């Protein structure tokens, strides 16, 4: 495996070429998630919600590719990915453990034109995240703030415990500064003393409480593990949201 069988074709119009990306910053967000910020010369820009392919090459030429959602707004410099370390993974333990500033790897993108939101797409914006599925939704929230959009936006974010909430401080800060942005957490396994938020998995009753009645113009983005995405998308349909305004993306371990 790996891409060694064919020469890379570069510079063709419309082709997404592999680009050299340098790690400029790493930050441990939670015990299992690290964000990596890359400088990518010639990056063509992206829409909030899009992803990139990452390609790693071992010394013997072996290559591995994976996809990661972009967490940064198009307006901010570089490309940031949030990588969750999967103990049995091949790529994530390297990206979330070994990699340090100055390292170089290859990226290509941006990829995906459906799970995206820009201010002209309207709202209200209903965002539902499970775990590291928050990454593409964070790109939308950061973009919305940078663009000074006033589209009413609510993030309902499910994590196992308070320590595992990714981007927590930044989300708190953005929500405190913007009356049209609401962030609601659900903690499914452990809750800190005095926790007043939800203490269970996201369900239909919670979606109704948090989002209120379905507005015809609302657009929903759901990203997380398959079980969460299936449940939430089905519940949103039952609550009256139309199928073509519920956009889904799945995250999570695939394979051993």
């Amino acid at each position, binding site marked *: *495996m*790996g*891409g*060694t*069988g*064919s*020469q*890379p074709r*570069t510079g*063709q*119009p*419309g*082709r*997404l*070429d*592999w*680009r*050299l990306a340098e790690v400029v910053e790493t930050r441990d967000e939670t015990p299992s998630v690290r964000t990596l910020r890359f400088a990518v010369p010639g990056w063509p820009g992206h829409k909030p919600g899009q992803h990139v*392919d990452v*390609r*790693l*090459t*071992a*010394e013997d*030429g*072996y*290559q*591995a*590719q*994976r*996809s990661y959602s972009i967490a940064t707004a198009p307006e901010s410099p570089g490309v940031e990915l949030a990588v969750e370390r999967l103990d049995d993974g*091949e790529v994530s333990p*390297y990206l979330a453990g*070994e990699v340090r500033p100055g*390292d*170089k*790897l*290859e990226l290509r993108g941006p*990829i995906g*034109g*459906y*799970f995206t939101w820009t201010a002209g797409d309207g709202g209200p914006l209903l965002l539902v995240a499970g775990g590291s599925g928050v990454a593409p939704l964070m790109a939308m929230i950061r973009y919305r703030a940078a663009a000074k959009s006033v589209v009413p936006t609510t993030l309902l974010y499910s994590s196992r415990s308070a320590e595992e909430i990714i981007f927590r401080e930044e989300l708190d800060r953005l929500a405190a500064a913007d009356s049209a942005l609401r962030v609601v957490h659900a903690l499914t396994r452990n809750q800190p003393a005095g926790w007043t938020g939800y203490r269970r998995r996201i369900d239909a009753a919670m979606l109704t409480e948090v989002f209120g009645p379905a507005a015809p113009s609302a657009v929903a983005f759901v990203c997380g593990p*398959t079980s969460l*995405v*299936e449940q939430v*998308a*089905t519940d*949103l*349909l039952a609550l009256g949201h139309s*199928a*073509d305004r*519920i*956009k*889904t993306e*799945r995250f*999570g*371990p*695939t*394979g*051993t």
Partner: protein
Amino acid sequence: MGDNIVSRGFRGRRRPDADIAGRIPPGQYLTRDFPVLSAGPTPRPALDRWDFVVRGDVESPRRWTWDEFRALPSETITKDIHCVTKWSKLDTVWEGVSVDTLLDGLETSADYLIAHCDGGYTTNLPLEDVTGGKAWVAFGYDGDALEPEHGGPARLLVPHLYFWKSAKWVRGLELVGEDQPGFWESLGYNNYGDPWLEQRYAGD
């Protein structure tokens, strides 16, 4: 860039045995799960209102109810599948009706088809890629009914192309003279999708 960049300290997993490695296309990795990918909610059509149609450039359209479709000759298919999101899964076992059976005896000058699905999803394929024992409408997986999240009650199965061409929740085939990009093909993904040529995105 032409030269490969070595990623400092990256070793990767132990390489699969040669017989397995030869079945994994470039840039793919082996999985034993069956990941779910879809752009929206999972449709759950009632079987008594489900039908399957062949229409477009045909003299007379064909239509089967669920019971009629299930009464068609079907076969067990064992194939490797390759998703554009990088996972490959070997020796998946399906039950389905060959597209050859659905198109048997049909007169058409069409060279392409568009698969239409519940939820509005479409994908385009050359006719020659779904005929001659290369494609099925599958209703069973691993000995059971195909689950809704994996495309049940029935999905297209075109295992020699990236798996987005194997459209979930398929309800009909429209035969057309001119190729027209489908859902993902209009959103930056490759029009054809050969995993062995790594045709993931437009321009690959």
